[in-house]
């Protein structure tokens, strides 16, 4: 039953590992839950789930696994018995068991975890190991042959009721992990420089000067180090970009939360950049900003990041009046604007959410990748793009083969 909870969580995509599981075992061994299912619910949640985003899934798995178990439950004996039975760890040698007891090595836990995961797959469907069909001593089919006690009035609110209420539905987010990964990649988006007022005590320089001054203290100051990166984001929205809503919004979230940048602005466009871009993704006329203004307003110290799939009708990129949006008819073809942008800014990169393999299939993607260094919207791609933005200057790298 407890393993059902554990694997149920893993199947639902909640990141629980061996360390969390062993923490829970430790807590149960200390009999923290007493004999209350509600407290077991609280404690196993505290030990297994590490973000409120997963609380809802925990509730659902818990409700499923413990369906029919009301009131009190004698968890400890059950788990202790299970833990003490070496048959439950058939894949492990006695030495491994011993190591496991010490609960020390992360590496071991990871490998043990993998073994467990493997085991689960192979024995799916009712083995003695992680049974669900009644053959297991931990089955959840409503019969309790092995000492799961039913009944005994609970003094507290029922755990099942709490779980079924599913209070945490609003907190679900399916992209938590991505954002952090992207943020770590974006961390490199800095160029530290010292400018502004000298307000930080320079200890090395002070010691040097003091010595030179025959021990008379001479305080030396310097400006603090600050990130000097200014980033302009131009983003394709709507149409072919819609399927990429999730990765793109992760990137946006990460960029918006990257407080280290000296300055950050975002504008939107649809398919291709023409005479105007928009301050808001709704692209209402009132939010239009002439692209020429961007070039005037953001000087060459800015770095340009374009996010878009670069795949469009060739005419949209190459022809005057090629734009598909009738409000935005423009005599300057998109490709001219692309050239103006890349010539103006210090560094520019293009991040493309399309699969790399698809790039060469699109005529316009091939053209644009000759103008802009193009990277894939993935954690590695973003890291490479960031390196290109702050690293040594280079021209469009290895354009997509035609």
């Amino acid at each position, binding site marked *: 039953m407890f393993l059902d909870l554990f694997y149920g969580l893993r199947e639902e995509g909640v990141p629980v590992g061996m360390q969390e599981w062993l923490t829970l075992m430790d807590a149960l061994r200390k009999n*923290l839950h007493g004999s209350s299912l509600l407290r077991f619910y609280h404690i196993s949640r*505290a030990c297994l789930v590490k973000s409120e985003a997963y609380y809802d899934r925990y509730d659902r798995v818990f409700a499923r696994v413990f369906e029919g178990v009301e009131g009190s439950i004698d968890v400890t004996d059950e788990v202790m018995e299970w833990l003490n039975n070496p048959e439950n760890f058939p894949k492990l040698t006695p030495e491994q068991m011993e190591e496991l007891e010490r609960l020390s090595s992360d590496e071991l836990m990871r490998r043990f975890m993998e073994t467990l995961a493997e085991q689960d797959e192979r024995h799916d469907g009712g083995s003695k190991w992680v049974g669900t069909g009644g053959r297991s001593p931990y089955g959840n089919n409503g019969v309790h042959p092995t000492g799961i006690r039913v009944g005994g009035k609970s003094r507290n609110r029922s755990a099942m009721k709490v779980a079924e209420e599913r209070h945490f539905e609003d907190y679900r987010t399916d992209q938590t992990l991505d954002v952090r990964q992207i943020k770590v990649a974006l961390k490199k988006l800095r160029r530290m420089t010292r400018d502004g007022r000298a307000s930080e005590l320079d200890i090395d320089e002070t010691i040097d000067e003091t010595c030179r001054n025959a021990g008379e203290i001479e305080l030396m100051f310097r400006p603090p180090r600050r990130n000097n990166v200014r980033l302009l984001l131009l983003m394709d929205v709507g149409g072919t970009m819609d399927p990429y809503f999730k990765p793109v919004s992760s990137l946006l979230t990460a960029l918006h*939360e990257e407080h280290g940048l000296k300055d950050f602005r975002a504008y939107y466009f649809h398919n291709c950049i023409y005479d105007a871009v928009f301050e808001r993704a709704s692209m209402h006329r009132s939010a239009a900003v002439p692209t020429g203004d961007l070039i005037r307003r953001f000087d060459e110290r800015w770095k340009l990041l374009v996010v878009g799939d670069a795949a469009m009708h060739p005419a949209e990129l190459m022809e005057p009046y090629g734009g598909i949006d009738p409000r935005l008819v423009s005599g300057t073809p998109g490709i001219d604007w692309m050239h103006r942008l890349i010539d103006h800014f210090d560094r520019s990169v293009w991040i493309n959410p399309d699969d790399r393999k698809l790039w060469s299939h699109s005529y316009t993607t091939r053209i644009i990748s000759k103008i802009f260094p193009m990277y894939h919207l993935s954690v590695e791609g973003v890291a490479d793009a960031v390196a290109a933005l702050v690293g040594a200057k280079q021209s469009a790298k290895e354009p997509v083969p035609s």
Partner: protein
Amino acid sequence: MADGNGFYKFTGTQDYIASESLVDAVNCALALERPLLIKGEPGTGKTLLARHVAEALALPMESWHIKSTTKAADGLYVYDTVQRLNDSRFGGADVSDINHYIKLGPLGRVFKATSRQVLLIDEVDKADIEFPNDLLHELDEMRFTITETGEEVAAEDRPFVIITSNNEKELPDAFLRRCVFHFIEFPERDLMRRIVDVHHKNLDAQLLDQVLIKFYWLREQTELRKKPSTSELIDWIAALLRSGITREQIESHIPFVGSLLKNEQDTEALRGYKERGGGMPSDWSELGPRYNQ
């Protein structure tokens, strides 16, 4: 309070009403000697929790408030070179002894203490994204070495570490794995009644009902940028009581809205809502199903 097994048991204090799940999480972290990571909306009492746990268990407490510039090493110790330089010029303490210039940070002081301590690491997400990773080893082992002197600072009795986070940044997995986690849910109306009771004793039950209906209704309004929190509710009730307002007066409007809404746009939004002829509920049944279970 240590019970027979030497376990510490936290049950909330007279002034701090904790939900059952929070109490269980605290006791779980205490028994397992793991750091307790607390998340939750602002104003749900994350920071207060540490103080009240310390009070309930009669343990001394140390707080470490994290800012965007805080570095992990600052929590352990700081080597005050400037003071040493100054002393070497103007005389003072014994300059040859570097120990005079090593100042322990909050983590260092807690480790060095001879008795068990409660350590609050407040708003851990304010710091750099790598900050929690830099503390992993120290929090695991509860010891560190001062490089300048080679002295090892180790905790005799593992301190109880409470870490709060406002969710501004994602925390690293390796860090999460070591913590017991609890998310403080926004209090429901029964719990809220008990919380209000701690601050404003013997409030008229019908008045409180009206106050809570308005409060939860405001929180349900999606236009608001910042939802009012528990602490703002307490302030609002204080304002209402001072002005001697009656139940009838808050049935149809919200006086002193400034103590609940702290944002001009939010006040505007509420005014706009009223001008459009929008009504406010005066009965629980007019609120969503969540409040009527």
